[in-house]
């Protein structure tokens, strides 16, 4: 309080040097603040731009040979085929990608394996250049299981292509 009293006395004893002009330093400062505020409010707003969406995947016709590279290695997407439809299962990379439990299905026709509920090597078609697996010898239960799997895939994953045998690409 001592200090305050001393300072008040000091200021009061000063001659009254009131400067009545518009452009005192304080006024210039206040004007600056006012102009800046007006400018900020009336500045034309930059239109908002959302980041661009990912471009759509082109629907392709695959053969067993061309499907093979899409097994998740080298950061490739993971595709697998069920009954002629190729699904993009990259979101399930933990399961279908390299090192996953179902990695055998990646880049292959998984229909027989899903129907029989087995991940063995002998569920996959050996001859990549031959005709597709017709699944003619599956029992009704196996076909039902396959349909269930296909429905789940349809709900979860995107269909990005169709699978035809080598040599059939140009047929409708």
């Amino acid at each position, binding site marked *: 309080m001592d200090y305050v009293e001393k300072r008040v006395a000091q*200021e009061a004893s000063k001659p009254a040097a009131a400067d009545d002009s518009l452009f005192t330093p304080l006024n210039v400062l206040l004007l600056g603040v006012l102009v800046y505020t007006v400018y900020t409010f009336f500045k034309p707003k930059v239109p908002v731009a959302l980041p661009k969406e990912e471009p759509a995947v082109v629907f392709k016709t695959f053969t067993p040979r061309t499907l093979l590279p899409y097994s998740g290695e080298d950061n490739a997407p993971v595709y697998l085929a069920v009954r002629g439809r190729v699904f993009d299962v990259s979101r399930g990379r933990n399961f279908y990608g390299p090192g996953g439990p179902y990695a055998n299905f990646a880049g292959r026709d998984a229909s027989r394996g899903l129907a029989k509920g087995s991940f063995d090597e002998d569920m996959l078609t050996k001859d990549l250049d031959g005709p597709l697996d017709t699944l003619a010898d599956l029992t009704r239960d196996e076909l039902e299981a396959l349909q269930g799997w296909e429905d789940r895939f349809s709900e979860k994953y995107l269909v990005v292509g169709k699978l035809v045998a080598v040599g059939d690409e140009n047929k409708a």
Partner: protein
Amino acid sequence: MTFFDQLMLHFDEGVTGLFGQWNVYSSLIFTLFAGFLTYQIATRRDPDAHPFLLARQAQPSAVRQEGESPVYRSQGAPHGMPLNPGLNVKDPGVSKWAKGRDGDLRDIWRQAVAGVQEDGPSKGATGRILTVLGSENVTEHRLDDLTRQINLIGQHILDQGGNRVAIYLPNSVELIVTLFACAFHNLTAVILPFDQPDDAVISMLRRSAADTVVTAPGSFPFDHVVKSYPSLRQLIWVVDEGSAHLDWNEVPQGTGGSVNVSTWQDIVSDGPADAGKDLPPLESQKEARDVTIFWQSKPGSAEEMVRFTAANLISAVTAQIFAIPTSQRMGPSDLFLPADSLANTHTLVLTLAALYSNASVAFNSVGAGANDLVMATRGIAPTILVATPAALLKTHQETGGTLTSAIARNLHSIQTRSLTQDGVMPTASFITSYYDRYRPAIGTKPGKLRLIFTAERVGAGTPPLSSAVLSDLRVYTGARVIYALTSAKVAGAAAQTGFYDYRVFNDNRSHFGAPLTSTEILLKDTATVKNADGQSRGEIIVKGPCVAGNEAALGVEGQIREDNTLAYL
């Protein structure tokens, strides 16, 4: 004193010295500053639509075919969900949560007569049907009277063996009544664009195989038609009050002995007074019949004949109802005026949507094709208007020409700023009341107009409306403007700008917004224009339940812009 104490003393003296200079001007500046800040904060309004919603208005599909773009859909009908097929009509007595029927034209009239169904202050409210004759004379038609006319006319046509009814009338209540009469009595309606040269009329009659014509005397080349079109069996004249005393049943000598001629008024007044008060019952009604329309491209070229099923029209009506946010939808307090020919499906679909929403509807026979909005809206104060781009451009040019003074231009730019920067419609305040004298005189009470629909017709040479023109129109009329893309094979619109989209771009023709909830749009490669990843360009193809044949190519090239809206190339 220590260094720190000295420092603080210097600081103290500096601050005190600075603020010691406070004088009158400082107080003034500070008051201005505080006032400005308070005003801006107090009058700040949130934009009508979040900018992120406007920045991405349609949803592309995740997969696209080779040579095509992804399929774009409205945010209201995302991929995986079916497009809007129907009105979800619930029959009386059915639970509120049951799934309704798709409905057809008959349900639209039933809803118009029944009134608002939702519980609330406007339950049971019906709209009024008005006819505007000139600037003074506005007649109202009672809904049960119109129901009677629907029944009597439909029954008369059926009794005389009619099957395909051609309607060649200007915008009038009789057009709508005949359309509903055909719907209720299982007749096929054919709507012909009005005021066409004689041979065009005959060619349209021939192509549509109409056996009945409902028309107005003076515009229909009766003699010529009877000579050249022998399949005509029945003719119904819609005669106005002034000519009612003439005998219209008399057929001139040597002409059309096989044509059965009657007048609308005779049919309606000959029927017993209590006949036809009830609509045919719901249970036994047969499947709805098609409606055929003729699409006019450039004047002089042949019209294109398109058959729309009832499902096409209903899907389009539903999409137009859903295109408007719930709080702004048409209702009993609205007056809808079609200032564009009802032979255009866009206008017809909007009129049906207005009837279904229990809005009041006014018909003005001058309105069709009139390029003057002021003349088309004389005598009434519409709240919702359907206008042609030519009429809007004329209004824009006239109003723009009067805005010469600097004050008016400043006011205009302030209001435009409100639209483009703040994203809200400009409010009426004391200052902007000076601007009101420049507003176009649309309707008897200009302030009532709240929504204007306008449509670009593919291939018909409609003048382009740039987004700057649309924004100016919003400021001039104080109403929101929706710009739609319409085409021959699409009932209603293929794409439409958003209700709350007020953005202005540097373009010659505004974009057309996002697809409706009843359409999906894709662009196909043409010889000159190709799609690329992330860049969709090509011929516009529209698919959906409101398209005749479920898929149609519009024959014009378009592109998808950054915000996923459709525009011409």
